[in-house]
């Protein structure tokens, strides 16, 4: 019994780590959907690019002789957040704003095109090969069970949780307490009315994309350094999973994205741990279908009311 508890703990640590990343990326999907009702399929690529930027910054700083891993990580994250935000802003400005207000399909196809463009941009600029990096922070805390099983929490996993929680708190405060946050909530409720009241909704939408990109950048740098490996194709599957998390939690709802990410990460870890790694996607997508059957608006989403 006690053996099982330790085992469960280890699976939970694994699930929380992946779940944190899903949650961070899902926020980008959910916020954009909440505000303009489109699915930004290029969001996974922003995550991928931010991981690349993180690697480049860490490489550059190491060459300058900086070897404190915390400074490296913080520096990489800061630069990556700034550059990714610029990308997030430009993507919206270049690809989505011109087609906004038209048929939804157009925006969707533009987003897919943007995703392909960004992937190829990195393919050409950084070669098609995986780039690896030595671990920045290694080591772990571990607890030995009486039966000799070692449940362990690596320092990097702890860093990922800590930064994720920090980012979530920051985002929640921004949305609930600041003027801009209020404006963005208002925009998501009724864009026309909000702009009639003198709020520049274009700016609010831009800010939404910037925040989404910044969250993806945090996830990109953290996971990039944790796994020590980036490739131009990593954005696609991560984006798909994060999108699933957003739908699971209720697309349009920020707490929903956070919860959806954690639930999806935990489900995957448990499925892989107790059944087999081959079935983890089956189980997690099965869960998605179940949730959508009984709550089509997701775990924390609000049912859409037909406006008359």
């Amino acid at each position, binding site marked *: 019994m006690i053996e099982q508890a330790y085992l469960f703990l*280890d699976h939970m640590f694994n699930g929380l*780590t992946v779940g944190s990343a899903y949650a961070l990326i899902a926020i980008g999907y959910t916020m954009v959907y909440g505000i303009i009702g489109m699915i930004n399929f290029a969001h996974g690529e922003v995550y991928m690019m931010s991981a690349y930027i993180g690697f480049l910054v860490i490489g550059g700083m190491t060459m300058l002789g900086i070897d404190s891993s915390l400074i490296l990580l913080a520096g990489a994250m800061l630069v990556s957040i700034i550059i990714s935000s610029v990308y997030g802003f430009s993507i919206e400005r270049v690809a989505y704003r011109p087609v906004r207000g038209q048929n939804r399909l157009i925006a969707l196809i533009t987003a897919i095109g943007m995703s392909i463009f960004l992937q190829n941009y990195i393919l050409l600029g950084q070669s098609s*090969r995986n780039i*690896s990096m030595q671990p920045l922070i290694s*080591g772990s805390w571990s607890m030995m069970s009486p039966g000799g099983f070692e449940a*362990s929490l690596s320092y990097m996993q702890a860093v990922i949780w800590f930064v994720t929680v920090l980012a979530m708190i920051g985002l929640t405060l921004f949305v609930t307490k600041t003027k801009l946050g209020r404006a963005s909530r208002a925009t998501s409720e009724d864009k026309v009315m909000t702009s009639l009241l003198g709020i520049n909704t274009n700016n609010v939408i831009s800010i939404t994309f910037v925040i989404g990109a910044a969250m993806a950048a945090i996830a990109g740098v953290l996971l990039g350094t944790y*796994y020590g*490996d980036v490739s131009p194709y990593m954005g696609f599957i991560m984006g798909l999973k994060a999108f699933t998390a957003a739908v699971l939690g209720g697309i349009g709802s920020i707490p929903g994205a956070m919860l959806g990410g954690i639930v999806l990460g935990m489900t995957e870890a448990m499925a892989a741990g107790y059944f087999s*790694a*081959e079935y983890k996607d089956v189980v997690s997508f099965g869960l998605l279908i179940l949730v959508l059957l009984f709550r089509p608006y997701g775990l924390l989403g609000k049912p859409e009311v037909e406006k008359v």
Partner: protein
Amino acid sequence: MKIKLSKKVLGLAAASALLGSAISVQADVKIGVAGPFSGPLAQFGQMQIDGIKMAAKHLNAKGGLNGETVEIVQYDDACEPKQATSVANQAVNDGVMFVIGHLCSSSTLPASDIYEDEGVVMITPASTNPEITERGYEFLFRTVGRDDQQGPFAASVIASFNPKRVAVIHDKSAYGEGLAAQVKMNLDSQGVNVVLFEAITPNEADYSPLITKLKSNKIDAMFFGGYDPEMAKIMRQGRDSGFKGQFFGGDGVSNSKVVEGAGPAADGLIATQPKAFDGDPRNAALVAEFKAAGVNASDTFVLPTYAATMALAEAIEAAGNFDGEDIIKALRTGTYETAVGNIEWDAKGDIKGGENTFAAYRWKKDGSFSLVE
């Protein structure tokens, strides 16, 4: 009227294009090199390119093949079966009559169907899946042993460590699963306790659930049938969360990329691969020449690719023409003195004495490796 005219123009253009390609085939002899030149396994493709470029340089320096200049054409299959068939068709359309490749068994299997139909002579320097040469194909050869030879060897290496609980993990690819099954079968027959036989999904970032499983099953030795990107992640995440067992792998993981990806966690990895020939005194000049060109000849498939190309060239010279039937006859008869030892092919296209072509190497965290006795 207008439409008719444009159709005529099109027809003319097509005819001249056909003419153009026919002319270019006559000008020189094309040897295709097919492998993963993009994607996560691109480092293997680079080894092939390095090897074949050197071979082409040497061949052209002594006047080409049957008096014609050798031209190397690259076909990127990204180690994906679908792309492999499409580049194989492309190679055939380009008039390529000889292919060195493919690298991954999962690419070699479907691509060789096309080459066999079209009479393209194919020598793979790397694909070890047994099934490849079991289909009775005439135009297919390989310079490496088979996984039903590598598997027993790897199993005996693992058994020599006297592990108590072994895990055999694979990546579901034709190569990885085939090799892992061979290793498991041989471990079972040697009485080694295999407690876990499982698959992972390649190209994922997170393998921590597998690590937890290894720890909870008290695994002290793990064999991985697959390629180095996954192995690197498993080792890194394994050491990070306190898994202390010994890691083993096959030729798919045995290259310096695995150390690059795993860092210090790669220290002590034991991998089987075709014997390295860069230390052979007969290759000293060749290895030095590779080094001058910036190529590390100890990379797993550099010398095998060079050797495969040179053996093919020798067979073409022996045949005296470019007729596929004559060349495969020549390949099956002679003994070829190559950079990876003397090669003789049997009727299936396998090398004779393949069971003795594998060796085990221990990797260090600085990226060097040494022979395990």
